């Protein structure tokens, strides 16, 4: 991602808060079996998937809404939400870039995700001179999801040469039904939890990745999620499978317009790493956080889980969470294969009235499995920021090791930081370490900076960046720059 597009993404105030004026086919609000059937039919899905959705829906109806998270919000009226909205011009799913509505392309360009320019690199258009800035952009293949549908996926042909499948999940259902059927719901079952069940019933699109045996994916893959329509929920589903010895690095970004109503985003992400495979999954989450008084913003209720299915597999989650009115997510790893590795690196920043309850689960089943958790929570304004993490070792996990470091940084005196660690050790030979610290950006630190000429806002952002260094180090380069700037913007007004 180039410098200028980074600036677009993080420009002062919430630059991503604009609305694209485009005609959409939107289902009227409401949820019943006919909505589930409509979505499934719209996608031309096989019967097994329709049945799977309906089973999820029936399960969801019988489930109570979870209330254990350390967040507070009025009850959600699930009948007031529209469960499907697609740009009218989009027709039936992603097409070649020439056919995508230019208004949609402009939207992504404004967000710093230039779908055209990405394609230029692939050699589709060759009228760019060498030395043109656009030629120097890093190679990233993008799947662009707009409200309920994927509007375009770049670099597909080039990836295909390497045997990599990267497409919308709707397309995968049509083109690779055997893979989808084998793995969908294998990590996050359709009845896993309230929001995962809802997602299983009504998911409308998302990305699918398959890296074949022994292949190192030749470029970064990314999905960019954009909510545009009003009163619409986004329920996307991502499934990534890395076959034996494969490697992939995947990035995810998200934004939404500024609206006074809360909007629901309930995604499910499933990762499967077979023997010796490695998946690196990075998120920069910048959903609209609501205004300074807590009006509007996205409810980000997400289930993300990976399974290290084979021996020596590795899954690494890195997340930078700065947006959303409420964040409720626990990217987890089930360490089934022997000697498999799970990692979780997280920066969660809350400001104004934002609330976050986020962390991870590391489930050790295989022998000599290892996990690392580094969590950095930053609270400012009147926000609330909780870390919640589970480390479990089963009796089979001989020699398992976990290291957890959980740090909180407070800015000002009106915010809250909470830590809820759960350790369930079922294995005598396991070693579990947990370290936690809480610190404040102190007046002394600010004064030292100011005395050296550095203004308070710059000082806070420098201190916060320093606090997050261990996590930023894990991000792909372009994202690390973006993340640092994003923190700066999100902290705006945090010092009085």
């Amino acid at each position, binding site marked *: 991602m180039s410098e200028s597009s980074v600036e677009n993404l993080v420009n002062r105030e919430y630059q991503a808060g604009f609305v694209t004026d485009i005609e959409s086919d939107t289902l009227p609000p409401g949820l019943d079996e006919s909505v589930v059937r409509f979505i499934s039919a719209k996608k031309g899905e096989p019967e097994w998937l329709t049945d799977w959705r309906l089973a999820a829906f029936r399960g969801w109806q019988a489930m109570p809404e979870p209330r254990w998270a350390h967040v507070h919000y009025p009850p959600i009226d699930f009948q007031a939400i529209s469960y499907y909205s697609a740009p009218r011009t989009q027709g039936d799913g992603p097409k070649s870039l020439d056919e995508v509505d230019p208004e949609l392309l402009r939207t992504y360009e404004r967000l710093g995700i230039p779908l055209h320019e990405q394609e230029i690199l692939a050699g589709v258009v060759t009228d760019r001179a060498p030395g043109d800035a656009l030629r120097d952009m890093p190679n990233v293949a993008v799947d662009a999801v707009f409200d309920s549908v994927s509007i375009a996926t770049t670099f597909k042909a080039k990836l295909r040469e390497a045997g990599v499948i990267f497409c919308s999940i709707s397309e995968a259902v049509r083109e690779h039904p055997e893979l989808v059927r084998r793995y969908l719901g294998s990590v996050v079952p359709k009845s896993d939890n309230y929001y995962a069940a809802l997602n299983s019933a009504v998911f409308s699109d998302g990305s699918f990745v398959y890296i074949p045996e022994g292949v190192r994916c030749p470029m970064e893959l990314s999905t960019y999620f954009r909510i545009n329509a009003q009163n619409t929920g986004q329920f996307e589903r991502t499934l990534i499978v890395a076959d034996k010895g494969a490697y992939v690095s995947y990035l995810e970004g998200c934004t939404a317009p500024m609206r006074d109503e809360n909007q629901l985003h309930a995604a499910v992400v499933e990762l499967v790493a077979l023997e010796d495979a490695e998946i690196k999954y990075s998120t920069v989450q910048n959903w609209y956080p609501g205004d300074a008084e807590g009006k509007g913003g996205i409810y980000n209720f997400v289930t993300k889980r990976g399974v290290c299915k084979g021996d020596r597999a590795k899954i690494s989650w890195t997340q930078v969470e700065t947006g959303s009115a409420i964040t409720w997510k626990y990217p987890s790893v089930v360490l089934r294969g022997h000697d498999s590795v799970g990692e979780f690196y997280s920066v969660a920043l809350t400001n104004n009235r934002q609330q976050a309850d986020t962390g991870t689960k590391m489930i050790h089943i295989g022998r000599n499995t290892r996990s690392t958790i580094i969590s950095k929570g930053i609270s400012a304004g009147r926000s609330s920021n909780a870390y919640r993490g589970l480390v479990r070792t089963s009796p089979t996990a001989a020699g398992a090791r976990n290291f957890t470091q959980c740090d909180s940084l407070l800015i000002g005196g009106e915010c809250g930081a909470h830590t809820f660690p759960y350790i369930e050790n079922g294995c005598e030979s396991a070693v579990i370490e947990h370290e936690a610290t809480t610190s404040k950006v102190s007046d002394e630190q600010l004064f030292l900076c100011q005395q*050296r000429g550095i203004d308070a806002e710059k000082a806070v952002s420098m*201190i916060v960046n320093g606090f997050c260094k261990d996590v930023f180090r894990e991000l792909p380069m372009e994202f690390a720059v973006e993340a640092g700037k994003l923190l700066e913007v999100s902290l705006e007004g945090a010092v009085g």
Partner: protein
Amino acid sequence: MKLLQVENLHVNVQGEPILKGLTLSIDAGEVHAIMGPNGSGKSTLAAVLAGRPGYEPVDGEVRFLGEDLMALEPEARAHLGMFLAFQYPVEIPGVSNMEFLKAALDSHHAALGRPQASAVEFMKRVRALAATLDLSPEFLKRGVNEGFSGGEKKRNEILQMLLLEPRLAVLDETDSGLDIDALQVVAAGVNGFRRDDNGVLLITHYQRLLDHIVPDQVHVLSGGRIVQSGDRTLALKLEREGYGWLAT
């Protein structure tokens, strides 16, 4: 040329009067030392000059290079050339010393409309200055004051002073907690800093610092006012006789 002119300065801390009519004048090229018993207001003077929050000037006037110092934000005072070497330098974990120094220097350049130093020339300069203070390049990569010994913290303050080249350096008990070797390194740093167009205000308890940095004037602060001024022989007398002989 007048650097600093303090006239009848009254300062409250948490509503409590600490400085009660302090008057002091420092010319360019001079070193002044302020001594005095505990609680006499020495550190309050340092803090109020730098603009530390909570130190409230209630009366009097402070002119620094002709400007009304008390009207300026702390960072604006810094850009004008006011530097405070802290008695207890605070740690900023995760922010490398190098990064901190660069941000500080950049802020000065930006405020003064000077071009920014290139990364290469900046590094060269910082490394050279650090070497004069017996600080290794490794030290520059560590977090600001993070896990530094007392002596390292104080030398780090001097490093910042040498880099930023202020017009007036206020050293608040920079000698406290230093062994004799470190004291000599710090003193050499301060002596190397002295020029015709800048000044130094040393705040200290101990005469021994003044063996290494020779002051032009020594002032005794007591009860929030300067009660006696003289040349360096005054410091020697204080060391022999204590503060008891002074009328407060």
